[in-house]
């Protein structure tokens, strides 16, 4: 911005500023501010000791680790959970290990839901007070965590898991983790 800059060039300053601003705004269009990075990525799944849904048998982090699995945070009060439920059932049929975290819900309602809509979960952790949800950094159901065989959180998806989310986001990491575990 020297004074001896030719006057002609100075005329282009607004255009250049506009161009830079437009680039930033264009980038902003493809960003989703609701998608927050999880603070738990590459950290161990938080320790917990909570009952399995519908029983008094206690589950802890060791009981649910040992293989690559999805941890799906759901509740009967969560409308989007109903939307993703059929797809989770489909995934379970394909052999994907899915654990449920029944988040701030009532056991009776949750059990009835599973009876009516089908149960894709290997086991359900009954997180009645939302304490595990808090340690995971859950801020709204549904959320799905991809955890590897060593019990380390690798990915978190907020929102409905459907075919697009599975094939573009979760499945590649899932396959990679499984290969790593076997090799």
């Amino acid at each position, binding site marked *: *911005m020297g*004074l001896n800059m030719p006057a002609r060039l100075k005329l282009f300053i607004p255009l250049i500023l506009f161009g830079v601003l437009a680039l930033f705004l264009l980038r902003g269009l493809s960003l989703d*501010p*609701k998608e*927050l*990075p*999880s*603070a*738990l990525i590459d950290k161990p799944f938080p320790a917990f000791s909570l009952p399995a849904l519908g029983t008094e048998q206690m589950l802890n982090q060791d009981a649910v680790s040992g293989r690559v699995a999805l941890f799906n945070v759901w509740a009967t009060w969560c409308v989007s959970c109903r939307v993703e439920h059929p797809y989770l059932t489909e995934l379970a049929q394909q052999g994907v290990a899915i654990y449920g975290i029944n988040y*701030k819900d009532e056991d009776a309602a949750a059990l009835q839901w599973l009876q009516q809509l089908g149960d894709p979960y290997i086991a359900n952790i009954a997180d009645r007070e*939302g304490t595990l949800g*808090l*340690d*995971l*950094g*859950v*801020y*709204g159901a549904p959320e799905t965590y991809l955890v590897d065989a060593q019990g380390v959180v690798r990915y978190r998806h907020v929102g409905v898991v459907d075919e697009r989310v599975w094939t573009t986001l979760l499945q590649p990491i899932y396959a990679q983790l499984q290969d790593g575990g076997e090799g």
Partner: protein
Amino acid sequence: MRQVCAVLLFIAWGLASTAAQAVIETYEFSDAQLEARYQDLSGELRCPKCQNQNIADSNAPIAQDLRKLLHQQLEKGASDDEILEYMTDRYGEFVRYRPRFSGATLLLWLAPGILLVLGLLIVVMTLRGRAKPGTGEQALTEHDQQRLRDLIAKAEKP
């Protein structure tokens, strides 16, 4: 009279806005100082669900949970730093309205200073450019000056 009305309106507006900030549940504190810290921290922690509100203003379930947790931790005697660390361990740096100074937040913290310096530079340079009265004359090329002299000479001839 008009001034009195304006003052009254201003007071009413002030009262209305504080009422709008109040949250639904109330917590009992063993110490007034804890309550003051609760107000400060709940104003500084950001609600992860409704992103442009702090947890004091938001009525989202997660904000209620975080307020409850904040109250519990304050009563347990946790320091401000411990509480903020607990929150960022779970929800990331996003949860703070005043994030820690680090590589990722470097630009965020330094941008106001950089822009201020840049603005001052532009002001100084513009003012300097104006202060030099001779520049306009010197900007004429030799050819232009010759033309100017010719024109003046022509005009002076009757």
